[in-house]
């Protein structure tokens, strides 16, 4: 069963500039975000993901198309009339107010009674574990603490949707990992719909219920992390999320003939000129003379601790990377220059039409 849609963009176009120099930051984008889900917009910088977020928040108006909240058209509403709050990349905390005043700001602007503001502020500060710092000025806080204040401030008015614009990008790695877990916990506890923007594919995979992959103002694929990773819709998605080996080939009637030589058996997929996509961890090394294996030569080996990346060259020089998990004690005994056989795990081969 699918939850009802919380926020929806329908055929949204956003162009900056006019006439010949106009740039389409969003090019006919349609996406429905379900109530209570953790939805991530993932893409490289300049792909339009932040623009889409700003349109949902109301900071900018679309050139055409509509934004709906719980089925109601809110395209013309200014940001202060939308029950949607934002956690800004720069946090944008008010420097002249204390932590508690920052958190209570939204409720105060809504004209809520003083007692209620006090109660909610205290509850929000407890939720982000900052009770002890309520009276501090925000300038006295560390980056991680400011991040928590920004979260508490955006959650306090209990918005229908919380927008998060790369909120973890300014934190160091360790703090970022902590905040990822913290964000999931907050989303679970509040039940609020989260729309999260990031360019970090690992962040997107670990945190999201669903991911929308964006490039050049369009959404290329929407789906759960596992689907995005194992069944990328096209070459961009496959290369942007994780590492992928791309092998040009021809497909006819279930037989795929690689341009580098060798054949593979696949089920379904587009016919004709195709690209075979296979993840490095799905590539197996076998003895070079094993029947049906692709012939390759080891070029070099890069040791990563948990695994070793083995770079190989096929007969025509096409490079393939195999990720070999490190075993407890054995050195696999591979050397550059050695011949090797390659096999792809069953079901791991994806055919891309473009």
């Amino acid at each position, binding site marked *: 069963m699918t939850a009802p849609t919380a926020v929806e963009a329908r055929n949204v176009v956003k162009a900056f500039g006019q006439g010949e120099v106009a740039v389409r930051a969003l090019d006919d984008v349609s996406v429905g975000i379900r109530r209570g889900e953790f939805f991530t917009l993932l893409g490289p910088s300049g792909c339009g993901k932040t623009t889409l977020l700003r349109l949902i*928040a*109301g*900071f900018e108006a679309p050139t055409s198309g509509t934004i709906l909240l719980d089925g109601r058209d809110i395209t013309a509403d*200014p*940001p*202060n009339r939308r029950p*949607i*709050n*934002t956690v*800004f990349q*720069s946090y*944008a*905390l*008010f*420097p*002249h107010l204390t932590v508690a005043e920052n958190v209570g*700001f*939204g409720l105060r*602007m*809504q004209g809520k009674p003083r007692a209620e503001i006090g109660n909610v502020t205290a509850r929000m500060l407890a939720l982000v574990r900052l009770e002890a710092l309520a009276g501090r000025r925000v300038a006295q806080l560390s980056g991680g603490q400011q991040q928590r204040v920004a979260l508490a*401030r*955006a959650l306090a*008015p209990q918005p229908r949707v919380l927008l998060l614009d790369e909120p973890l990008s300014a934190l160091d790695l360790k703090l970022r990992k902590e905040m990822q877990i913290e964000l999931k916990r907050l989303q679970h506890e509040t039940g609020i719909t989260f729309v999260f923007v990031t360019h970090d594919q690992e962040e997107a995979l670990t945190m999201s219920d669903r991911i929308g992959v964006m490039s050049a103002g369009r959404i290329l694929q929407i789906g759960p992390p596992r689907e995005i990773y194992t069944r990328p819709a096209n070459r961009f998605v496959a290369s942007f999320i994780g590492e992928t080996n791309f092998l040009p080939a021809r497909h006819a009637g279930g037989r795929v003939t690689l341009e580098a030589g060798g054949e593979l058996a696949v089920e379904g997929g587009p016919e004709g000129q195709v690209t075979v996509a296979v993840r490095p961890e799905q590539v197996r090394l076998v003895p070079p003379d094993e029947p049906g294996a692709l012939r390759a030569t080891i070029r070099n080996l890069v040791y990563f601790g948990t695994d070793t990346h083995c770079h190989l060259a096929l007969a025509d020089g096409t490079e393939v990377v195999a990720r070999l998990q490190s075993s407890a004690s054995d050195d696999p005994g591979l050397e550059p220059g050695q011949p090797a056989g390659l096999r792809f795990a069953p079901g791991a081969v994806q055919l891309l039409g473009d």
Partner: protein
Amino acid sequence: MGRSFDVTSLPGVTFVAGLAFLALYAPIVTLVAYSFNDANAISVWGGFSFRWYEAAWANREVQSATARSLVIASAASVIATSVATMAALGTTRRAAFRGQTFIYVAINQPLMVPEIVTAVALLIVFASVKVATGYAGLGYLILAHSAFCIPFAYLPIRARLEGMDLSLETAAADLYANPWQTFRHVTLPLLAPGIVAGAMLAFVISLDDVVITEFVKSAGQDTLPTYMLGQMRRAITPEVNAISTALLGLTVALLTVFFLLTRKRG
């Protein structure tokens, strides 16, 4: 990479710098020193005394000129700062528009047009207004001072606004603040140091003005600077030194506060 350029490595820098400071401050030090002179002559030392301060303090003309100066400076700085704040908001908190540079130059007109030209122009305009209305009060001086104080108030306020993070106002709107609430609860409190700085700069500029005041004032409307100018034409007494020193003290105090306010930004 070589070491970066350092002016102190040039010959004679210290000497030239010392000479420049001497030229700037020697006259002021002399003025201040002689304000405590007990003698009647302006350039003969006769021992330390506060007698010229006492004389100036007791002088009714000085009293009324001081009061008039303070009234005009206060009123002009309030008016100029209000106008300048609106102008600064109008030129920074909106989309870029055609003629922006022209507006910027127009607002700063008093910095560019020779003061004597403004003075003559105001004299002519106010003379006809006087004839038409019969009003001859301090209003003319306050209006004139307000006008030339606007750019001095405008510049620090605009600088402060430009240095302010626009995302703060976006965040306020995101948190249900309507445009007025955003201004009242976010923009204005953050802008306050700039406004105070602008007001004080305007106050000091007004307090010091001679040229425009001399042209615009009616009979019996001397401000402190025009009174002093009048005194110099007759007999120069160390009383003028004492008044100058007091004025200097007030200006330094205000500019110190101005400096502290503009330094501590963000």
